[in-house]
């Protein structure tokens, strides 16, 4: 089992009445709610937390990309990953990812990912999401119906740029470059591992499997959503006659550990409620632009996790509901160990992404949560799958003794 630490980087200071007085946390949230001084401290606090996870022995630390979004303050995950690369030495840098459909030419992503792989000594996971509707269609203005086509083209372009040994002409529909020439090569060969964060599109499952990438179900609805997405994914995997290796599947889980079950509620309830009531208060109109989901996915009845209907459903839920529905796995180390092992086995997860900073959770609780998990829970799940399966999808960094050390680096 690979255990990774994921940070959504939410703005922790939304007004108490946010979900009632404001339309949406994403796309049209008033910028007046953002205080740059708090932003300064938050960004540095988040970096501290990510670096702490490295020290605690997590296999990887994960960052992602959002725009015009108060629950995800990272328009550029690569900037975060660059900062982390210098300040950590063990954890993999899992960038989940860059919305490659939107970058013209996507060569920029190929270059930045190569830089991150070089700086970190080969610790990069390159994540390529199709991108979400609020980000790509509403906040960045891309046509929904052609987003997937742009995505596939960008993927092909980046991969060729990483692999080809000579300059080449790329003549795509949306990108045309006469002199594609990646002088900067990634350290990992033939290229960093590619993981695909997805929201449950039928065609993304097939595409990910056909390319032999990792599929990551990133949701804040825990087991409920994970089961739906995971079942669909594994069915496709079986239908294609491919091995059901759990390391093909990444899964995000909200996790809150404290000394006892009761103490967990005392510590974390308020911050979870902030998360479910404010952070994912996403207006229905922005959840799914027409054309973003394909006809097949609409017919399969797979909907996004955002939108008023979903918000209404969650509205007024309390700690007990979040725990009972397994949106969050919370409690004493023993409770978390039991529930988490069960979920990971049931969903066949090989790449866990633990979300341990949640909503308004302040730093001291984040560190407590992370440390308790690392010391009391992680050891019990680390061995899962290892006798039976090999992880073919994680980074292959250069040996530790060959790696440059920040402050003492010198090329020869």
């Amino acid at each position: 089992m690979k255990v990774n630490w994921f940070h959504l980087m939410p703005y922790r200071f939304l007004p108490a009445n946010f979900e009632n007085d404001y339309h949406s946390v994403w796309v049209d949230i008033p910028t007046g709610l953002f205080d740059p001084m708090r932003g300064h401290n938050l960004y540095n606090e988040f970096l501290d937390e990510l670096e702490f996870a490295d020290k605690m022995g997590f296999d990887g630390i994960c960052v992602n990309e959002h725009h015009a979004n108060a629950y995800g303050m990272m328009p550029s995950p690569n900037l975060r990953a660059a900062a982390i690369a210098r300040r950590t030495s063990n954890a993999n840098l899992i960038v989940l990812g860059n919305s490659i459909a939107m970058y013209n030419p996507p060569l920029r992503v190929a270059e930045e990912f190569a830089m991150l792989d070089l700086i970190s000594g080969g610790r990069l996971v390159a994540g390529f999401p199709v991108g979400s509707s609020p980000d790509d269609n509403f906040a960045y203005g891309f046509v929904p119906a052609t987003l997937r086509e742009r995505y596939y083209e960008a993927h092909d372009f980046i991969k060729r740029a990483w692999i080809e040994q000579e300059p080449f002409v790329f003549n795509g529909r949306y990108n045309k470059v006469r002199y594609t020439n990646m002088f900067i090569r990634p350290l990992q060969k033939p290229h960093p591992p590619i993981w695909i964060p997805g929201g449950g599109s039928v065609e993304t499952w097939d595409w990910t499997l056909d390319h032999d990438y990792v599929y990551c179900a990133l949701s804040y609805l825990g087991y409920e959503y994970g089961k739906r997405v995971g079942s669909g994914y594994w069915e496709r995997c079986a239908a294609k006659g491919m091995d059901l290796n759990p390391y093909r599947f990444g899964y995000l889980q909200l996790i809150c550990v404290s000394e006892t079950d009761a103490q967990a509620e005392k510590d974390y309830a308020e911050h979870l409620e902030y998360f479910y009531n404010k952070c994912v208060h996403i207006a229905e109109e922005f959840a799914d632009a027409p054309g973003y989901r394909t006809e097949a996915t609409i017919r399969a009845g797979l909907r996004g996790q955002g939108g008023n209907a979903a918000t209404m459903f969650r509205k007024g839920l309390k700690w007990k509901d979040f725990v009972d529905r397994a949106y969050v796995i919370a409690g004493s180390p023993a409770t978390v160990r039991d529930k988490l092992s069960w979920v990971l086995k049931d969903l066949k997860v090989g790449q866990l992404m633990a979300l341990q900073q949640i909503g308004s959770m302040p730093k001291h609780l984040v560190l407590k949560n992370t440390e308790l998990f690392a010391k009391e829970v992680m050891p019990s799940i680390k061995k899962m799958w290892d006798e039976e399966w090999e992880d073919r999808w994680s980074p292959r960094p250069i040996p530790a003794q060959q790696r440059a050390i920040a402050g003492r680096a010198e090329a020869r």
Partner: protein
Amino acid sequence: MTVLKTISLRGGDFNVKYYREGTGEHLVFLHSAGGLPAFTPELQALSKRFTVSAPLLPGFGSDGEEHLHEEVQKLVFWGWDLLDALEIERPLLVGHSFGGMLAAEMAATEPRRVKKLVLMAPAGLFFEEHPTADPFAMTPDALAKAAFHDPQCEAAKALTTPPADPAAATEAIVARVKALAAAGRFLWPNGDRGLNERLYRIKAPTLVLWGQSDRIIPPVYANEFRRLLVGAPSVKVKAIAAAGHALFAEQQQAALDAIVAFCTN
């Protein structure tokens, strides 16, 4: 009852469904992003005076929208290829909203092949000083209500009432999403694909019709079209009272009278 016919274009890349009814001069009607669920009473009325051809646009019951990508030029070629295949040389060209944008684009591309042009609350322009509404960021209910002067009128109610049969309701949802997705290829994110720079090429006498209560594309855009249609021998702007963006459905008679008078004059 007028039935859908099918004609194939470009070696089968496009199979276009269309209605054809009536006698007299050729009138081609291009529907809005709401689609064309039937040969409507409005079109039936027009077919008493004209040979009405009304295609379903790609993604609205006709296929092949993926071949258009997001390029207006490809949609315009689709339109002229269709009229060539239907042997319509120089029609009266009428378009509503999204279809109005297409009609204007077609007339700008082949200015000598449009006898007269009727633009009913056409899309295609966007000026920051008077922003249009964003139909793509509206729930179906909100959109249906915003499209009418009177959100309680029968036509509005029909739009907001899903079919009782669950299978039919699912099909209606899929059809709606597909239609908006197809329109989004050319209207996303604000409908401006540079038509303002091409309108000068239009040479047909033009009627610009607008619902006075249009809350999707405000009536001020009628003046913008008039301002930009510098090559048209005449531009007549007519406001329809007590009508929203869905002016044809809401004020059928007033709109019909204006169109027939303009086309037969």
